[in-house]
């Protein structure tokens, strides 16, 4: 026994000297040598008199102490004093002290459940170990996280958790990134005493996105709380009792939330995993590339996990200002669209109407030749909704050099409000929405147009009981709202102070108006926006300290396009076009296009516009190129190439640069940095990476509007949340989602 104790003490000292270095990079793991066998742990002399050196807060967390010192308190974690604000839990205090407490049910963005008991710590003068996630820290509390009592408690909890957990890690998709796996290695015993049969639970069908293996569930209820609190669909619940307890929907029900994929991330075990990703790859085989999403205008931060040339999955990345740590299902599961319907080679449509693959040289030569046959004013360039700023800059420069000013971006309407940045940006910022107390949504359904913005609004409504008024066609909301009306008449009534909602706006401290980018497409958009401005002025929505007047954009390219000045009128430009250059533009109406017009389609997917194209130039998708995107709040972000591009495709801006040379109007940039230099002369905000540059000029300087609002009700802008662009339309998963999850 003496030998054993000596050996353990040696290993203890070795471990404690090594740990601080480890703590900086990864989750801190307590010395398992002593935890391995409880009786040996008890034999070791109690806590070493010398304290280990203090640690850095977990994950570099910063704590803002309240200005009033009475609202802060001091606790001791493993002997070190830490100051924390009042109301922190013991677990949060430990995090500030740099001790990462193991946990399953606790999640910082969800309510506290306290049912997994993994976070037990010893508190001096407390008769039993306490669940640190649910215990508020009290002044002078002496918390011990590394004592034999705490270790034994964790080991016992872990044994109970593993009791009914199947030993199927080798066939489990969570394997390698499983909290239970990691924590049982760090805190569990090397054997269990349970010899009965393990229980088994019937798997639930939650739809085409989330795969369930409910036998693996440890009943942490994170998914139940996420569905109820964040996603706002109360479908999941905890059914039954005791050891028969299980997570389910009771009645057969699919999870019809646009955020349902996030339960895959928050599930600490392999009970909820990604159905499309099932058995496809192991997480250690994947290369993660930190990039951004372009399927909507939010620009959610994502990590693209790839294996070789294939995108295997997309997971969210933390960004408190934009998407917190959630992403929408469209963002998460659109990746299989990147592998289907791709354009590999330049192609020319022959006289028989069929496409024939040609070399880049031939394709560009044909395009250049046609380009010289048409009059300059018959040249039109259209940027698509997924275009990056570099390619739009190149397209605009190229079309201008050819003598035309007809270059536009789809979705921006006949007369884009590009004069002032504040006219098309979310001026409150996405995170700023949390300070609002009244929302007026005009012609926008954020749930389908920008799911992450909707999650923010819902968070605010849940936290502060903020009021939401909505003007638009009947729509699905996952929070309380007043449907004020369907058309501009209601807006006029509010502007004239005749509507009951006026009193709500009047009493609001931080009112927010969000206008949908769908209004850009309306004939009376100038009048509408001036009415909205009247409302804003009347109810003090824009003040020096608060700008609550917002436009919620629809597409990733929209903000940058308006910054760069791609503002031609689409219907006039297309009507008169003899040479139409579509840069990934699939959703623009080509009905009015003259029959003899020559259409070049540059894009990555064989989507709608390809049917009309004469020449196809293949380009790379957002996962394959470096591009600048500006999101709806005016934050500039870059995509980073995660996988090599397919076939003979090239970056968008490079294709236009090459074409300009063949056409004899060479663009003056050869590298990405040179394009960005050019962009900085047009819109300097687009080169300031990861910065939200708010608009500085107020809307006061606008000329008066003589237009009258029409009585046509607002239309639904996004009919199908799952299929909005070329990538999502090519995706099989998105097709399944629209078939099963959309309400008919």
């Amino acid at each position, binding site marked *: 026994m003496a*030998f054993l104790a000596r050996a353990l003490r040696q290993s203890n000292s070795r471990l404690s000297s090594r740990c601080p270095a480890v703590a900086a990079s990864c989750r801190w793991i307590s010395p398992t040598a002593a935890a391995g066998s409880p009786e040996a742990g008890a034999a070791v002399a109690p806590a070493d008199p010398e304290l280990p050196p203090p640690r850095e807060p977990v994950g570099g967390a910063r704590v803002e102490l309240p200005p009033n010192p009475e609202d802060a308190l001091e606790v001791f974690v493993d002997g070190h004093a830490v100051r924390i604000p009042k109301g922190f839990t013991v677990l949060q205090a430990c995090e500030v002290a740099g001790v990462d407490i193991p946990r399953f049910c606790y999640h910082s963005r969800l309510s506290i459940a306290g049912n997994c008991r993994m976070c037990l710590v010893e508190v001096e003068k407390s008769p039993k170990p306490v669940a640190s996630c649910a215990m508020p820290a009290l002044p002078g509390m002496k918390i011990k996280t590394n004592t034999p009592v705490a270790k034994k408690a964790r080991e016992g909890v872990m044994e109970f958790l593993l009791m009914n957990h199947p030993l199927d890690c080798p066939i489990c998709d969570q394997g390698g990134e499983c909290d239970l796996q990691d924590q049982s290695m760090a805190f569990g015993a090397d054997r269990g005493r349970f*010899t*009965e*049969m393990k*229980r088994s639970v*019937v798997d*639930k069908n939650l739809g085409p996105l989330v795969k369930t293996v409910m036998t693996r569930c440890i009943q942490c209820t994170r998914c139940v709380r996420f569905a*109820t609190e964040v996603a706002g669909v*109360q*479908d*999941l*619940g*905890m*059914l*039954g*009792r*005791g*050891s*028969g*307890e*299980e997570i*389910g*929907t*009771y*009645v*057969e029900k699919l999870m019809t939330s646009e955020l349902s994929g996030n339960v895959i991330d928050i599930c600490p075990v392999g009970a909820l995993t990604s159905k499309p990703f099932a058995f496809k790859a192991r997480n250690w085989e994947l290369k993660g590339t930190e990039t951004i999403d372009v399927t909507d205008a939010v620009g959610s931060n994502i990590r693209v996990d790839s294996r070789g040339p294939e995108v295997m999955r997309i997971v969210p990345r933390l960004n408190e200002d934009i998407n917190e740590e959630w992403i929408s299902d469209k963002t998460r599961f659109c990746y299989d669209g990147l592998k289907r319907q791709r354009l590999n080679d330049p192609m020319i449509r022959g006289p028989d109407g069929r496409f024939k693959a040609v070399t880049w040289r031939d394709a560009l030569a044909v395009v250049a030749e046609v380009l010289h046959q048409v009059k300059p004013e018959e040249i039109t360039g259209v940027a698509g909704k997924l275009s990056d700023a570099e390619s739009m800059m190149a397209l605009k420069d190229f079309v201008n050099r050819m003598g035309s000013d007809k270059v536009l971006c789809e979705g921006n309407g006949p007369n884009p409000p590009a004069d002032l940045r504040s006219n098309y940006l979310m001026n409150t910022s996405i995170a700023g929405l949390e300070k609002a107390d009244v929302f007026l949504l005009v012609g926008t359904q954020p749930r389908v147009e920008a799911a992450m913005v909707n999650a923010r609004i819902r968070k605010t409504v849940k936290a502060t009981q903020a009021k939401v008024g909505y003007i638009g066609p009947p729509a699905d909301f996952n929070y309380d709202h007043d449907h004020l009306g369907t058309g501009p008449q209601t807006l006029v009534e509010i502007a004239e102070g005749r509507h009951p909602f006026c009193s709500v706006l009047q009493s609001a401290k931080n009112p927010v108006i969000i206008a949908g980018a769908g209004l850009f497409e309306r004939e009376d958009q100038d009048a509408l926006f001036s009415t909205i401005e009247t409302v804003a002025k009347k109810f003090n929505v824009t003040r020096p300290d608060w700008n609550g007047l917002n436009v919620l954009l629809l597409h990733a390219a929209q903000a940058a396009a308006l910054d760069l000045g791609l503002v031609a009128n689409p219907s006039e430009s297309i009507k008169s076009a003899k040479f139409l250059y579509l840069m990934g533009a699939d959703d623009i109406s080509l009905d009015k296009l003259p029959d003899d017009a020559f259409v070049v389609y540059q894009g990555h997917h064989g989507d709608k516009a390809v049917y009309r194209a004469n020449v196809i130039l293949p380009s790379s998708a957002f996962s394959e190129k470096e591009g600048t995107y500006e999101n709806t709040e005016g934050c500039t972000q870059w995509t980073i190439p995660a996988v090599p591009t397919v076939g003979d495709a090239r970056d968008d801006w490079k294709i236009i640069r090459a074409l300009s040379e063949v056409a004899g109007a060479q663009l003056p940039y050869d590298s990405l940095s040179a394009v960005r230099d050019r962009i900085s002369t047009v819109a300097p905000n687009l080169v300031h990476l990861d910065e939200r540059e708010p608009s500085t000029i107020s809307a006061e300087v606008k000329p008066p509007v003589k237009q009258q609002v029409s009585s046509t009700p607002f239309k639904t802008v996004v009919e199908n949340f799952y299929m909005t662009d070329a990538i999502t339309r090519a995706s099989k998963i998105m097709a399944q989602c629209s078939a099963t999850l959309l309400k008919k």
Partner: protein
Amino acid sequence: MLPPAARLAARRLLGLASASASEAAGRRLASSPIAAAGYSAAASRGSVSSTRPFSTALNYHLDSPENKPDMKWEFSEANMKKVNEILSHYPSNYKQSGIIPLLDLAQQQHGGWVPVAAMDAIAKIVEVAPIRVYEVATFYTMFNRTKVGKYHLLVCGTTPCMIRGSREIEDTLLEHLGVKRNEVTSDGLFSVGEMECMGCCVNAPMIAVADYSKGSEGYTYNYYEDLTPKRVVEIVEMLRRGETPPRGTQHPERKNCGPAGGNTTLLGEPKPPPCRDLDAC
């Protein structure tokens, strides 16, 4: 001292040996009459030794002709008054506190069980998502989510009753009615379930009879105690004939929970409590 690895192996071997030894002991025990009765009872109830018994009902809903979510279900007019009375007990912002009494009322109205449609109706009344009602209904074992008989017979299975022969009572009932546990007889009159301690240990064994034959107005929930297999069959037959057997103890010589044949102790007047002699102070 052995090297640690060898000691570990030795301990594993020892563990395996003792496990098999205890199994053998179990088998030896099984040959004794008491244990044999227990084992055979377990076997006759259809429990296979390799599965662990969990809650009696499924934790998820299966559609059947009489239980579908899209069916219409409403409280009767008389019960609607009771619903309002129940809701008046709780603050208007905590209506969900009424879920349990409302489920009970729905169960009485619907012949002893709550269909999904009734749970949905309750969710609408208390203004919560249906899943919150499902959670409550699946948690409590006294809410039946599948059909039961008009007389739902609940046999106490907890230790004191088990020692006094509750398994025999249950086996007799099941055999007499020709059903398995939680099955309904073909005439829809009876079903047998198990319940944990109902607090009648002094008169063990006992069954509780939930009588749903007269709706929520005539609903009764009576205990029949001090049962013998013969007596329990008599009770079932009386119920079948529509009679009401006298509730409480069935022992001919006992009154309530007093001893058979009258009190044997504490016969005189109880002594007054001792008082201090105040004068002595």
